[in-house]
């Protein structure tokens, strides 16, 4: 079983109240030097069978039509390898949110 990760973040120009609330709390917690915080969603999909281009294309479509709302969100699809390092996928389909 392979793991594919879809990260969904609000587009940079869209207000992120959650990230802002975290950032504004940091000084109170004694943390400095963090210029910006954005909060998004992470989906971990356990895929049966091979994660080939066809499978990735389907997951990309899933992300675009369902996991993310591309009116306000961007997403990235990644395959996690054994070391836990995530490689962003750039197949024929663009990995960044299309529309």
């Amino acid at each position, binding site marked *: 079983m392979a793991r594919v990760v879809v990260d969904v973040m609000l587009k940079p120009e869209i*207000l992120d109240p959650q990230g802002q609330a975290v950032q504004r709390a940091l000084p109170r917690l004694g943390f400095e030097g963090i210029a910006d915080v954005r909060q998004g969603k992470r989906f971990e999909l356990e895929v049966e069978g091979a994660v080939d281009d066809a499978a990735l294309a389907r997951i990309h479509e899933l992300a675009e039509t369902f996991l993310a709302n591309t009116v306000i969100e961007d997403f990235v699809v990644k395959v996690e390898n054994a070391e836990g390092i995530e490689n962003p996928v750039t197949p024929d389909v663009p990995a960044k949110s299309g529309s």
Partner: protein
Amino acid sequence: MSLDTVKHAEQTPDVELPWKELGLKEDEYARVREILGRRPTGAELAMYSVMWSEHCSYKSSKVHLKQFGEKAPQSDAMLVGIGENAGVVDVGEGYAVTFKVESHNHPSYVEPYQGAATGVGGIVRDIIAMGARPVAVVDPLRMGAADHPDTKRVLPGVVAGIGGYGNCLGLPNIGGELVFDACYQGNPLVNAGAIGVMRHEDIHLAKASGTGNKVILYGARTGGDGIGGASILASETFDATKPSKRPAVQVGDPFQEKLLIECTLEAFAEQLVVGIQDLGAAGLSCATSELASNGSGGMRVELDDVPLRDSTLSPEEILMSESQERMCAVVEPDKVERFLAICEKWDVIATVVGEVTDGTRLEIFWHGEKIVDVDPRTVAHDGPVYERPYARPDWQDALQADDAGELARPADGDALRAQVLQVVGSPNQASKAWVTDQYDRFVQGNTVLAQPEDSGMIRINEETGLGVALATDGNGRFAKLDPYTGAQLALAESYRNVAATGARPLAISDCLNFGSPEDPDVMWQFAEAIRGLADGCLELGTPVTGGNVSLYNQTGEAAIHPTPVVAVLGVIDDVARRTPIAFRESGQLLYLLGDTRQEFGGSAWSDVVHGHLGGLPPKVDLGREQLLAEILISASRDGMIDAAHDLSDGGLVQAVTESCLRGGNGARLVVPDGLDAFTLLFSESAGRAVVAVPRSEELRFTDMCGARGLPATRIGVVDGDAVEVQGEFTLSLAELRSAHQETVPSLFA
């Protein structure tokens, strides 16, 4: 290219501006040039184009809307009328109430959650801007067919958005509507209403007066949201290097809005505010031009001082941005420090961005250069006015001739029983608890009545029990059959719902949802609906305090049903006397008030059983509505009735089902002389209600009805655990409950 300053505009009269792309018509652009005596700067063009849009200028609707003023009934209750952020009425004991309904239809289709959420945010800011503490919200909704896959996307998102925003804001949701109809498939209606309460002396208006007073922008930072038009101007014409896509959808931050409410009310309480305006559609363009034109002087604004979320925004974009959760206050110089301290207390960013001048111009500066120099009235109030052509549609006669009275009726008691189950279990007639249970109705601790009661009711004064009630209604099917009557039926139903709870109707707000004004059929529907509403308000003595017009609700050529939604506000001296819908006591007598006629045009029965829409809607008799209301109010005040439920879509059987389920008691009904069971159960004649009368009060109650000339027919008794129609059928409460309560969850949960 360099900054398009006023000076530059004077020197380069021939520069072509993208006025067309910004939605202005040729003659409108010519008019802007004429007003200014030169070509506008990019920033000025941006302001005029948004402020002269249909949404902000009411250019197609103005000529009709003025009837609300011309036909306004005499009313001592009106403190602030149409034209301000929201109307204000006197409810006694020194209290004033402001309320309004607005639409957020199009954004909610694109992004249901955020569209609906920011709809709530916007209406609540209108209420705060009047000086009031918001105390409740309502949400009249119209969706596409219940079983259409896209409705499964839109409705749950809209409900989650309304709940997500309103719940987080701490406003009880005390009413609304949810109607499904295929005509709304590509264009759902998301209307949101709010009520606020203040003392008379706390009423605030949107005007900037007093030379030297400071203009303070506070709340969220300004970002690139909702500035479609302006970014055309900014990126494509003026600076091609800019990202050309700015988001059309805004994300709401209810937490920020909650802070805005608290800090604004604290500033009001310390009398720090001369004038105030919320930032809604058209953002700073609207707020500055309206504040300046309603006040006595001019205004000077330094755009560089506006706190930004995105430093790449152009001045045009800053002026147009519709970033949520922002307000603009006018404050005397020596009170600025205190105002800013209150904002700081609530973690709200506040910045002085300008001041009131002794001139008459609105002047806006960027990097030290003047980019706007206009008479603010010309932006805010002197927009174009259209006399759009309208004509009675050529299909209207055929529609009305298709009489619902001809439809096949149930042959016997068994068939009637089956149709009752079918109707009370249909998506439109079924319980909406799946929706309303996602809304907090208890917060603030003053909710006397909420869904599924006839109207929401909020206590205002803990000591005296003074309260207000609000109901919203609209029936697009009736309005399609006859928009004049349909609008009056919406008014009558909402009025009746308020009276049924024991409150006295005082004033109304409305949200008029229609198709394209460029279609003469639609324009006729619109004109007729307004005429009906204005005539109706005059007759009932309930003035229109304000409202909202939403046009272009259509998919391609197909317009939605004309859908005027009417919100009636009522007042009750002591909320302890409120009348709920529940049949709580076995043995109480059921009386049907009003006349029941053969009226099935546009009815729930014709829709659910036959998929039919045709004929004429029920007849309206506003004098009768008034009489019914007086009886319901007196009966509540004098303790003569224990329950009341108004009759509307679905007819008597719908009302009895709801009252039985709510109270956990059954009812035995007898068909009175002169009526057949089918007509008794399903007719939708207006001006009716069902009440439960304790036996000890029967004589007093019937005497009162008799003396005042209201037909009151004894139709049965509260009893058992079934709804039984003698000689026809029996339906157990359990069976009714599952039919009524399982439909909506099974579609959407």
